[in-house]
């Protein structure tokens, strides 16, 4: 038992030092600096999103997190994805969220801090999950791919309408139905409608 733990710890240490060696932090480059900055924003933004006691601030922090994620995509040379992230996430989803906040909450309202047992529960669940995931990730040696240029718009377009292997016309079509169905669903739920007459039987029980 002890030996297993010991060998596990050694393996972990070795992997961690290897990763840091490959990062070669002694020779800072622009990309490293940018990554550090983005990572910092993302982590801080995420933590603040889930802990801020004012809901609109939480939304703002979420916005910064999403922006920084778009920055990561840019860093990885996926400009198209970054643009989508900005327009759909930051531009679309977040705007909907902010609207609904304005619709339902008072701006100056401060949440009560969450109960201690719930925080503990969150820490236990998320912490153990994070620990496990990081252990597994650290111990895994991923294959090194050969660097290839990022896709340009033409490639993206061709692939989106491609019918063969690595063509995405089918998901593209299906997702359009998905969007349609969700739209209808959202409308039918959110649309205001009169309650029927009180003579209807109460069906809750």
């Amino acid at each position, binding site marked *: 038992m002890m030996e297993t733990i010991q060998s596990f710890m050694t393996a972990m240490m070795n992997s961690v030092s290897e990763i840091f060696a490959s*990062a070669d932090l002694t020779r800072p480059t622009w990309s490293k600096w940018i990554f550090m900055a983005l990572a910092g924003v993302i*982590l801080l933004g995420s933590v603040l999103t889930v802990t801020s006691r004012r809901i609109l601030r939480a939304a703002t922090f979420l916005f910064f997190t999403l922006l920084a994620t778009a920055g990561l995509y840019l860093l990885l040379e996926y400009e198209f*994805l970054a643009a989508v992230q900005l327009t*759909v996430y930051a531009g679309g989803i977040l705007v909907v969220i902010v609207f609904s906040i304005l619709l339902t909450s008072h701006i100056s309202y401060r949440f009560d801090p969450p109960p201690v047992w719930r925080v503990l529960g969150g820490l236990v669940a998320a912490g153990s999950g994070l620990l496990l995931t990081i252990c597994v990730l650290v111990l895994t040696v*991923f294959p090194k791919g050969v660097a290839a240029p990022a896709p340009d718009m033409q490639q993206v377009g061709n692939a989106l309408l491609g019918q063969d292997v690595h063509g995405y016309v089918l998901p593209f079509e299906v997702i359009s139905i998905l969007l349609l169905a969700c739209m209808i669903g959202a409308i039918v739920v959110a649309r205001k409608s009169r309650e029927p007459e009180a003579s209807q039987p109460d069906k809750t029980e």
Partner: protein
Amino acid sequence: MDVPVHFFLMLSAAMFFIGVFGFIIRRNMITLLMAVELMLNAVNINFVVFNRFLYPDYFEGFFFALFAIAIAAAETSVAIAIIINVYRKIRSIEADDVAEMKH
């Protein structure tokens, strides 16, 4: 790219589980939704990073992230609709007020 892939992965893992943490401790349904957005976003980073670093020949991760964003948008819209519907009924968006059915 000279940042090791593990850094990206750990960043996304951290973001993901911060989202989980947020979901568990929050009460307001909209903040729950924001926590979910964090989780989905973290996953997208994973896809993109794997695609870029490990398997750059095809753009499977790239497209997956693309579609995942679209689906996240759809999911959010329906969720918001339902939350607003709840709000209309009980004038509250506290998730703890919406826990009538249990045991």
